[in-house]
Every structure is written in structure tokens, then in C-alpha cells.
């Protein structure tokens, strides 16, 4: 995987002298850059266009850096806290929800980190028994732009003095160099988004091969990091059973079960408009030809019995490898939890509590 370097950079006037802006520009010295008065205006003019990851916008986040995962009333949510350092991703996954969710075709990084630290400091006063699980993987890949930003050491210094805070980095890359030979493990865990190799090869363009991701996880586990795996989105395809079973076997071969904090399972779900957008970019993709029906939250989901079967099989294979592994479902109903996993949290808070306990172990 070649590290991401944009082909064009727009810099909002207000952030041109900020330290992170300068760091990024120094690492993209050969890239044409243009100062603009308002990133919002640039984004507005390009709203609705297909993603253009070759363009990087550096600007000030005028909104909040930290948001609770919006969840939805009909399905259980793990109450993850989103740390929004930017939007967009240089990887090109055909199923990526950001294609339809964001009205901004560019990769955008917020460089006003001082305001981020101030906001994060305000979240530090949680009761003793609660944990702040935050993550940067909601609107992009947590490690894909690290070579430009050096965000990890910065956030580690911030978190290291704070009790009950854990940053979960989510990635499909193998860019773990910034984490190696460091003692970040107490405050930072790394999770890999995994899929069957058939899906990874055909749908996750630009991502690392799945086996490489798992090997990278094994390497970090060897350095004492807690590891997470997110099988999300699970996708049905002819031969899916063997495809996913093989990945579980790879995990068993490379990552000790004791290092795995959790494994989440989520089936492909999407806003209805994503299908047409993705088809324009990835016309050969067959993933949207599955049996999708409107879910209770308006997103398209696999027909419920198919999801239950998918989750139940995955859980069985994972438990075969590690009987005590903690598996949770992402945005599913208690009914699906019970039928697929044999239990269901009583509420979002109950699921949050279960994950918080895993963090403390």
C-alpha cells in the first residue's frame, strides 16, 4: 500500500498558520496548494459530487469534535463516542456509507487541534465506573492519514493523564508503525475491519489484504495492545461460509484470543441512495443484489432471517476458536441478538456497560 498523498490541497485561510497545517504541508511539499477563504463554501459548491479523495481540504472544524454515536431508536447501540478529526477516506470501499452520508466529496482534515483538546478535556469528568470509549474511525480510516498528521502521539499525551478513557483506532490498513515500540497500549487499542478475502479483493479497493491486517493485529498484540475486530459489513455471497470461516481461522493462527477485547458483527446496511451512488463508481459490484429490505431505521438491511443466520454462524466459528470471546452486534434488535447470539443486552446502556467492562479487564 502506497501512503496517501493528495494531488491537490485547499487550505482555509483561517488555519494556514496552525501547526498541524504546516506539518501536513511539509509532508506534501510537491503537492499544489491553494488558500481559500472558506472551506464551507468550497464544499457547498461541490456538494453531491462523487468522492474525490485526491483532493485534501485543511480547515477549521466549526462544529463539535466529539459526538455520541447517533444510533437509532429501533436497534441496540454500543454508545461509542465519535472523535471527529476529519471526514473522508483514501480507501475506496464500494459499500462505504460515507459516499451517501457526507455531502463533501473531498478528504477533509480539521487542523484546529487546540479546540479539539479543549473539547475533549470537557469530557474527562466521567463517573468512576464509566469509560469514555472514543474512536476516530467513524468518518474515515484511523490510520490511513497518520503519516501526514502524527495524531497518535498527540492524543496519547492528552489521554495518558486521564482515567477511564480509551481510544479505539479502526482501520483496514497495516500502518501500525506509529504504534510499534511505544507504550500506548493502556490508552489506545486498535481494531481492524475484516471481511472475507473475496469481498476485500473486489470491494475494498486500496485496503490491505485481510491476512496482512490480521498479521499486523498479531504483531500489535505481541506488543501488548488490546485488539478488536469488526466484521462489518458482513456480506452474503456464494461461498460466504467458507470465506468467513477462513478469516476466523486466520485470526486463530495469528492473534491470541486473550488479546482480543471484542469482535463486532454487522451486516451490510445502507441508506437507499447509496446503491445508485456506488453503482456509478463500482458498476461491477454485486453486493447490492442481496435480499435487502427497508429496516426500522429506514436503512436497507438483509432480510432478517438471513442476518440471524449470518451472525449465528459467525458467532459459532468465533466461539469455536475462543469460547470466551466477547461478540456484540452493531445496530441490531434484541430479537436478532437473542436468536443469533443467545442473549441480548437489556438496553444501550447495558451494552455500553458490557464493553466498558471489557476495557477495564
Amino acid at each position, binding site marked *: 500500500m502506497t501512503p496517501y498523498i493528495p494531488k491537490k490541497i485547499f487550505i482555509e485561510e483561517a488555519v494556514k498558520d496552525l501547526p498541524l497545517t504546516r506539518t501536513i504541508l511539509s509532508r506534501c511539499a510537491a503537492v499544489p496548494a491553494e488558500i481559500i477563504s472558506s472551506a464551507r463554501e468550497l464544499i457547498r*459548491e461541490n456538494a*453531491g*459530487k462523487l468522492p474525490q479523495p485526491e483532493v485534501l481540504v485543511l480547515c477549521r472544524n466549526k462544529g463539535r469534535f466529539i459526538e455520541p454515536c447517533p444510533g437509532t431508536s*429501533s436497534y441496540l447501540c454500543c454508545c461509542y463516542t465519535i472523535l471527529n478529526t476529519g471526514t473522508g477516506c483514501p480507501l475506496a470501499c464500494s459499500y462505504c456509507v460515507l459516499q451517501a452520508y457526507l455531502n463533501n466529496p473531498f478528504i477533509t482534515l480539521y487542523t484546529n487541534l487546540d479546540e479539539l483538546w479543549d473539547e475533549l478535556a470537557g469530557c474527562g469528568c466521567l463517573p468512576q465506573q464509566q469509560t469514555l470509549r472514543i474512536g476516530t474511525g467513524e468518518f474515515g480510516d484511523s490510520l490511513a492519514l497518520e503519516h501526514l498528521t502524527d495524531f497518535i502521539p498527540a492524543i496519547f499525551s492528552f489521554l495518558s493523564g486521564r482515567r477511564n478513557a480509551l481510544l479505539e483506532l479502526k482501520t483496514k490498513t497495516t500502518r501500525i508503525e506509529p504504534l510499534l515500540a511505544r507504550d500506548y497500549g493502556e490508552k489506545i487499542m486498535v481494531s481492524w475491519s475484516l471481511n472475507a478475502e473475496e469481498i476485500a479483493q473486489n470491494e475494498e479497493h486500496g485496503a490491505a489484504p485481510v491476512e496482512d491486517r490480521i498479521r499486523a493485529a498479531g504483531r500489535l498484540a505481541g506488543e501488548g495492545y488490546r485488539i478488536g475486530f469488526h466484521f462489518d459489513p458482513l456480506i452474503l455471497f456464494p461461498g460466504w461460509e467458507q470465506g468467513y470461516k477462513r478469516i476466523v481461522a486466520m485470526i486463530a493462527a495469528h492473534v491470541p484470543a486473550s488479546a482480543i477485547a471484542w469482535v463486532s458483527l454487522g451486516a451490510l446496511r445502507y441508506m437507499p441512495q447509496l446503491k*445508485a451512488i456506488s453503482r456509478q463508481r463500482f458498476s461491477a459490484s*454485486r453486493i*447490492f*443484489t442481496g*435480499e435487502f*429490505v*427497508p*429496516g*426500522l431505521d429506514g436503512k436497507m*438491511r438483509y*432480510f*432478517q*432471517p*438471513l442476518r440471524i443466520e449470518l451472525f449465528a454462524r459467525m458467532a459459532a466459528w468465533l466461539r469455536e476458536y475462543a469460547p470466551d470471546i466477547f461478540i456484540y452486534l452493531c445496530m441490531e*434488535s434484541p*430479537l436478532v441478538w437473542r*436468536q443469533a447470539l443467545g442473549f441480548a443486552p437489556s438496553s444501550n446502556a447495558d451494552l455500553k456497560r458490557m464493553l466498558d467492562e471489557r476495557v477495564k479487564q
Partner: protein
Amino acid sequence: MLRYELKTISVKAISIEDRTFVITTERNNELLQKSIEQVGLLYAPYIYFDNHARYYRIVCGLRRINACIAAGWREITARVVDKCCEEKELFLLSFYDNLSQRVLNPVEQARTALRLLDYFADGMVISEYLPLLGLAPTEKNLNQLLSVARLEPEIQDAVVHGSMCEAVAAKLALLQEEDRNALFGLFSQVHASASKQEEIVSCCMDISLRDGTTCSKIVRDPEIQQILAADKHPLSQKGDRVRALLRRRRFPRMSEHEERFLQQRRKLRLPKGVQLLPPPSFEGGRFRVEIEFDSAADLRDKAGAVKSMAESGLLQKMVEKP
């Protein structure tokens, strides 16, 4: 401001075939002809002399000129636009003239968008001109218009006459010619609302991608041909049958599940006026019972039937393993 001169011109000197600036899809208008016969031409068309082609091109007023010709006129008074005018200005004149008089139909909108792109960048067409056409300024809307503009005339006619909606036509435009014609041919043999047409096209596109086949092969399938050939069924029923068949192929597991649910529901032998309804698309686990009654005694009877159903093992099986 455009400069023009009022002149009386022989209709033979005007090309009604040249559609450089013409947006309208309407070829004849009897009402307009009657009006012209009664009170004359109230509003002189704009024309432009093309030195190279040696004829007058119609900038705006095709229907008026056609009506004059149909009324037997040999000459008409027209506004002849100054030769120095640029093509872009002439097209904009045609565009605003049309816009000031009526709402453009989807094919006219599509033709307009296609021509505007000859003169302006995409972004400008989206932000400035789509709102004038009554459309939201989005790339998606522009792409849909362009798809419609490039369709075969027969399909465009179907859009103009309302037998096919613009969204379905735009979907057909994504297909290879053979597939497009197969589906268009199918719609000429059945009656289906816009949403049903859209569902049929989507099903065919998804099945073809999933199974590595083509829409034309799907349409040629003997089962579909059999439905189309059945003379005794009304066209709307044929449309519903084709749609149901394609839906079963597109969603095999869900169709099987639905069928099983219906079979089990029949076994519950609920009285008329009591219905057990599954969750929409079987998503979630919330079933509903609907009772229709016309007296307290009727409700008591039906409530008794509902109570018996609640105690049956079959219902438990149906709702607990949805």
C-alpha cells in the same frame, strides 16, 4: 439586448426540420391553429438566417410556424434576429421564451440541459439553470436529464405522454440497447404504474447483475412470455403478475418465507374480519392483529377467536421464529 427586425418571410425559406434551438416535443397543436385562423399570429416567432445553410432557423416559435403552415399561410411575419448574435444567446432566447409560456415536460427539460452543457460548465447548469426548470440543483438531477435526452425517440415519446416516468426512463438509459428495448417492449404489453415500472426495472437490473445474465434474457423467459401471451387477462393484471414473478426471483428467501407465513396463517383458520399481519418485510418482531366488527357480540366472538389463536402452538412458532 438581442437586436431583431420584423420581416415578412416566405414559410418555404424557414426550415422546420432544423432543431438547433428547438426545445418543444409537441409537433402540432390544433388549438393554436384555430386561434391563428381566428385572430392571426399574435406573437411573432424569432428566426435566424443561417448564411451557411441558406435558410432561416427557428429560434422560438416552431409550434406557431407549424400552425400557420397547417392553416395554409404562405408567409409569416417573424422577428429576424441580428446576424451578429452568438448561438448561445439564441439558445437562451429560445429557453427563456419557452419558460415564460409553459412548464417544460421532462424530455424538453432534458433537451434543454443537454444543449446548455454546450455553452456552460456542469456546475453552472446545475446551480443556475436546474432551478429555472423547477428542479433541485443537484448533479443527480442533471445526470437524470442527460440520460433521458439520449434515449431513443420512442422512449422519449412514452415519457412525454406519461406512459413512462422520467425516473424509469433514466434507469433504462443505463442499460445496453437490447436490454432497454426488451424492457420498453415489456411495458408496451402491460399496464404498470410508475412505481411498479421502477420495481420491474430494478428487479431485472439486480437479477441480471447477480446471475450474470441480461435484462433481455430475463424478459424473454418463458414464464414471463406466457403471462404476456395470456389474452384473457387485463393489461394491469399482466403487469402485476410480471412484477410478482420478478420479485420472487429477486427475493427468493423472503418470498419463500412469505409463502410459508401465508400457509401457516391459513391453518390458523381465523374468522372473516380478523387478520394476523406480519411486520413489514418481516423486519423486527412486531406482529399485528386487525379486527373488524359491527356489534359488541361480533367483537366478543372475534376476540374469542383471537384468544384461541394466542394459545395455539402454531402462532407461537410463527411469531417467535419470524
